[in-house]
């Protein structure tokens, strides 16, 4: 796959269709892969990589990149195409300046999960028949492939590319996923249990803003949390209230626009399951206002920019579920 991608990228660079390529660059170890822009065939040959660890969603970079001179080639996984489509819909990317090659998606691996097993000193990771053979300083270790899969991939919602100019490999289908399982589990807890769960999670937050900055839906020029005039500009949570507020507002602001790409949880250095907040909104929207998948198309109205005269009242929240 990696070779096919490099070859196609070289062709497109050579015939002038694009003048640069956004993809993933090899790091020091097996897993530390950085999104990068490649300008030439030589650079592609040297560093371009596509493997089990190339999980980063590059569509947000296209907000800036698509406004530069010339066309850029972007390799997008199915989940990335949803993000890209949503950005197109919001006029944040210039569609004409991006040449999209759809590539097969995950499941991708999470190095943190391998490390959490106590496996350390990782030198190389190989997938042999869905068993990971991990070469370490302390000898070879093995673990089942699926135990190291990123959370976002474990509950993949779709293998379908919603936007592309060409494909390498097959296009897939929208999947039946179990992505709302954990949300439901929480909904069925008591309010006290839910409170305790989230307090425990949010208290880990160090307000690094990685979740916000990586989110393809968070594209405000200036975030309200960076604006000294907003009265909520805070850099570090001095109080549990601030942790709550930041995460509620962050999730709320992308409600109806979040494609559930799962980047927020992937990048969280403290492993806070932030995607659950987004999924709660998606689940509510689906059940209250009809099924809606952000990024699926570029024309439909977002649920929060829309209304029906017979929408349910807010009091529905008081009437359902566990108190």
């Amino acid at each position, binding site marked *: 796959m990696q070779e096919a991608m490099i070859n196609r990228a070289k062709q497109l660079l050579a015939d002038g269709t694009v003048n640069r390529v956004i993809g993933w660059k090899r790091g020091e170890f097996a897993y530390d892969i950085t999104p990068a822009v490649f300008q030439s065939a030589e650079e592609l040959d040297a560093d371009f990589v596509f493997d089990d660890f190339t999980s980063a969603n590059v569509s947000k970079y296209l907000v800036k990149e698509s406004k530069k001179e010339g066309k850029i080639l972007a390799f997008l996984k199915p989940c990335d195409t949803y993000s890209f489509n949503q950005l197109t819909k919001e006029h944040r990317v210039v569609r004409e300046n991006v040449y999209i090659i759809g590539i097969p998606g995950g499941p991708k691996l999470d190095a943190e999960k391998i490390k959490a097993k106590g496996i350390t000193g990782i030198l190389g990771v190989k997938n042999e028949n869905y068993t990971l053979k991990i070469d370490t300083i302390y000898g070879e270790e093995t673990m089942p492939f699926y135990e190291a899969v990123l959370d976002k991939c474990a509950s993949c919602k779709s293998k379908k590319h919603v936007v592309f100019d060409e494909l390498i490999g097959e296009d897939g289908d929208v999947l039946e996923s179990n992505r709302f399982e954990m949300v439901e589990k929480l*909904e069925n807890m008591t309010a006290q249990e839910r409170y305790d769960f989230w307090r425990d999670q949010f208290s880990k937050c160090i307000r690094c803003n990685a979740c916000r900055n990586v989110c393809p839906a968070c594209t405000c020029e200036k975030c309200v949390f960076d604006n000294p005039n907003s009265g909520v500009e805070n850099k570090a949570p001095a109080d549990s*209230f601030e942790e709550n507020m930041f995460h509620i507002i962050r999730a709320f602001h992308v409600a109806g626009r979040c494609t559930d790409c799962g980047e927020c949880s992937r990048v969280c250095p403290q492993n806070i399951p932030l995607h659950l*907040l987004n999924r709660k909104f998606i689940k*509510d929207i689906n059940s*209250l206002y009809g099924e809606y998948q952000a990024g699926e198309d570029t024309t439909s109205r977002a649920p929060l920019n829309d209304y029906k*005269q017979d929408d349910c009242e*807010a*009091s529905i929240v008081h009437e359902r579920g566990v*108190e």
Partner: protein
Amino acid sequence: MQVNENKEFQPLIVAFCCNWCSYAGADLSGTNRLNYPSNVKIIRVPCSCRVNPMFILRAFQKGADGVILCGCHPGDCHYTSGNYFTRRRMTLLFSMLDFLGIERDRTRVEWVSAAEGAKFAATMNEFTEAVKKLGPNRRLEDLRCRKQ
């Protein structure tokens, strides 16, 4: 609000009222000499959809024990459709607060027209009672703002 062992807990209620219906409704309940608790602090907004989730959260931060949002009845919005958007937005926000384990009775949306002075007073009485039962807001409180 001070919590004094000898005194009954008096919640602080923040009511966002839209300028065209609910604020006039509150006014009417006043001119009709209907009683509603003095714990209710009214903040006038041009339309209920002016209220952004941050307003609700910041009211809790600065010491509110309950927040109620009042607007025109659906279909009667001065700006045609503002309250329809409010309805969706607040439904999702309240659902999220509930999801985080914040007591669901601390928040409410109520439609009050300019003619419904009695409904305004009744709603405020009822809401204040409900919040009083819950006690002081502790789950969505900013400790720094608590008065010693």
